């Protein structure tokens, strides 16, 4: 059983379980599934300054969300400790070849050593990917009013037109990062 669960889950198992997460949050507390709001709540708790955007009762509106993301961290740890096979991610041969051309190898682990290892932070490519990329995720998610969970999954599941526009933006940006920025950064 454990062996079966430890193997990577196919999309038709994972997708419905994510959809179920959306429904569970709504059923338990009437909460809209969203993860990036946790970043706003943390800023509101730690450094609201004079920003009206961060001056609100984060305990009342956001505590459930912070507990939810603490659960995600814990779940990631559980999966790593008990379910990890350590096998490289079985991406398609085309992806493997494309990434090899950029000098990125699909080794063991979920992320590339070339970009995610602590030493990589000192390289221009590693710095841009982790620090500039992370900054854009936080900045863009708040500007758009949600991230992949809030717009792409929950927003579309609630049939929200604004979420569809946001998702087009997500893909436009992602395609530009993949096909324009990464080749420049990695010199491929």
């Amino acid at each position: 059983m454990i062996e079966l669960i430890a193997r990577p889950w196919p999309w038709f198992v994972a997708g419905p379980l994510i959809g179920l997460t959306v429904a569970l949050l709504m059923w338990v507390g009437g909460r809209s599934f969203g993860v990036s709001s946790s970043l706003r709540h943390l800023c509101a708790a730690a450094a609201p300054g004079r920003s009206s955007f961060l001056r609100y009762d984060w305990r009342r509106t956001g505590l459930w969300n912070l507990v939810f993301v603490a659960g995600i961290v814990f779940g990631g740890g559980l999966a790593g400790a008990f379910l990890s096979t350590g096998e490289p991610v079985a991406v398609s041969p085309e992806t493997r070849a494309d990434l090899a051309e950029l000098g990125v190898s699909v080794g063991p682990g979920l992320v590339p050593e070339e970009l995610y290892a602590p030493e990589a932070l000192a390289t221009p490519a590693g710095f841009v990917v982790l620090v500039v990329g992370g900054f854009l995720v936080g900045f863009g998610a708040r500007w758009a009013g949600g991230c992949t969970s809030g717009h792409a999954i929950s927003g579309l599941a609630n049939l929200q037109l604004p979420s569809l526009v946001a998702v087009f933006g997500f893909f436009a940006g992602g395609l530009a990062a993949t096909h324009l920025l990464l080749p420049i950064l990695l010199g491929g």
Partner: protein
Amino acid sequence: MSESQRSAGASSAGPWELVAHLLIGTFFGVVLIQSEVVSWFRIQEMFRFQSPHMYGVIASAIATGVLALWLLRRFGVGALNGAGTTPEPKRWGPGASRRYWLGGTLFGLGWGLTGACPGPMYALMGYGVAGAAVVWLAALVGTRTYAAVRDRLPH
């Protein structure tokens, strides 16, 4: 106030509700890791259109969400804490749409670079990927910066 009139997500969460959210988060974290959607490699594969994996995950998640939320509302199942189950619609209309494509595109650039949107950041941190903590800290700085300049941005 009538319990049924409360809108979705308006109230503070009680202790048992927090425990439930911790468990749902844990479940979601395991799903994110086991389905490999947290993987930078899988995100690259998606943006290169070289596998249906990510598209299948996202599409079936939306489909399941639509069905489950419809069932909740169709049969009038309120939330366990008495809240409503219809979220407030997102603001939309002339002059209220630029934030979605402008902010969305910036987010997408970050997603394509890091291969991690916010959910996966947390799951990867728990999994033990130190670089994910760097991404998360940078995302916090990005969020704080947005708060500082938001009055000067089009929305």
